[in-house]
């Protein structure tokens, strides 16, 4: 008979409590908007505010743009580092870890100082915001793609494709991308989650986003921000689940059916 590992169960239950207890407390508090009874009043107020949808939509847009441009930058870079520039790998890894040591506020002020005045005044456009988000996502996106590339024999697959006449675009899109699809998806999930809840960049660059909206609501109301937190949490999870199921559906496998 299989032995029950009490210690493992204890750790598991502790982890469950650590994760769900704050969520449960937030939920419990958000339901107390009406005195003496539990109700979804805070949620109703939150959903009736058109700014909620507007700001959530903006954050979603920023997240999608960040993911697209981040993939365009990180996948070819990581691929090239693996294929030809192994020597600079430590340098690239160091650069991608920069957001862990440089606070977001320092990054955003750097961007404003550099691109907030001529000759390259970009702050009226969302370019610095997306660029900042791309930097913030570096550690997650690069590491995910890097681990995916480590798992396959990049060099030989590339050479095999080259010897059959493939160009770089074909190699990246038809050989490399499908084979690191799972790694890319994990980078995409993490980037999405980070951008959806980001506050500093959006606030200081004055772009509408879900993070600053929650902060604004939080300074005016007591219960609605808790409801919004849970909604934001749920929506982020829901979006990630959709992306994950899409990823599972698209197997990344290419077939030529052969009659025999």
């Amino acid at each position, binding site marked *: 008979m299989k032995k029950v590992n009490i210690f493992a169960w204890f750790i598991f239950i502790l982890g469950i409590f650590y994760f769900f207890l704050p969520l449960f407390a937030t939920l419990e508090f958000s339901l107390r908007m009406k005195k003496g009874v539990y109700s979804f009043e805070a949620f109703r107020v939150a959903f009736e505010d058109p700014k909620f949808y507007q700001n959530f939509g903006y954050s979603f847009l920023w997240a999608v743009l960040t993911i697209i441009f981040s993939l365009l930058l990180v996948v070819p870079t990581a691929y090239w580092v693996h294929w030809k520039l192994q020597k600079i790998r430590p340098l690239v890894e160091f650069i991608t870890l920069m957001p862990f040591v440089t606070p977001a506020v320092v990054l955003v002020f750097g961007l404003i100082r550099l691109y907030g005045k001529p000759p390259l005044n970009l702050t009226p456009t969302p370019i610095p915001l997306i660029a900042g988000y791309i930097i913030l996502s570096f550690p997650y996106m690069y590491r995910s793609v890097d681990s995916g590339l480590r798992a*396959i*024999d990049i060099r*030989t*697959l590339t*050479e*095999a*494709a*080259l*010897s*059959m*006449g*493939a*160009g770089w675009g*074909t190699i990246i899109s*038809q*050989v490399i991308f*499908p*084979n690191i699809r799972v790694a890319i998806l994990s980078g995409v999930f993490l980037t999405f989650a980070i951008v959806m809840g980001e506050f500093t960049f959006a606030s200081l660059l004055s772009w509408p986003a879900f993070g600053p909206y929650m902060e604004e609501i939080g300074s005016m109301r007591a219960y609605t921000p808790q409801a919004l937190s849970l909604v934001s949490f749920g929506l982020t999870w829901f979006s990630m689940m959709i992306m994950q199921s899409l990823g599972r559906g698209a197997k*990344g*496998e*290419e*077939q*030529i*059916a*052969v*009659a*025999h």
Partner: protein
Amino acid sequence: MAFLEINNVSKTFGKTTAVKDFNLKVEKGELVSFLGPSGCGKTTTLRMVAGFEVPSSGEIIIDGKDVTYEPPNRRPVGMVFQSYALFPNMNVAANIGFGLKIAKRSREEINQRVNEMLELIHMPGYGNRYPHQLSGGQQQRVALARALAMHPEVLLLDEPLSALDAKIRVSLRGEIRSIQRELGITTVYVTHDQEEALSISDRVVVMNNAQIEQIGPPFEIYNFPQTEFVAQFVGTLNAVNAEVVDPKAKILKFEGQQLQTAFSLDKLHSGDKVMIAIRPERLSFASQEKKANILKGKVQNITFLGAVVRIQIGIDSLNFYMDTFNNPYLALPKIGEDVEITCSAEAVLALKERKESQG
């Protein structure tokens, strides 16, 4: 004019010379093997033909066209890799049809060619499988079909059988050779396995320390090695340092024993140092009537190798190996017994003297 020409090609990586003054002409339909130990430059040379490395000097010509600086995707070559390199996200048919799809051939043509290739490698019905569903041998056959699907002018194989087990290696090398003959495709085959090189090649290029040691048909490489390295690397060899006694009579001596060679020593003088090389299978126990080329020694060890029995004989401070075909009724000497062995003068090769840096 040869179909594939590699003229004075050298390749250096920083201060390291990977290939030095490589010259080779391969005729159309010929299978040439590059044979040598790891790091001898054989794979680098192959990669230069494929276009994955650019020569530091020299030129590579395929069918009269200089392709030295052509990128790999514009060369008329197909390549098979040691690690198969099948695309894991594509099924067998998609792998084989990949190059044709890149070349924008019609779907009908791709399907027809894929089916032809599957027939060629004796794997019809495997088109819808994925690489992970195939054995190593099957994957390498698909890799071969993929490389051949595009009708390349030159087929390059980089140690294609190294990752397979011994039995499959033997059967697959026969299959590769028969497909190569059937299609008449000019082929360069890299291997460090001498048996593989000798068994499938029209010619073998033996390489060592970035240079060619000898080029020749397998028979010539094995029986008439021109350098000590070739003699040592290809097959088992009894090699001893010796001295020329009489160049005209072709007499050599070592450790107080004398041997006569059938090969000319005209360019040498008495007292010159040479290396004697004798293949183990060319030695036999001396009969009573035999008087010339007798070596006296003591049996040190007897090893049963299946088809062959290898007898180690100590001659003074040297060890000689003698191979004899296995026979259940063979009367073998006992360990420690004094024996006389002999060989014909044709079996005694006199090569340049052994250098310390070699072998």
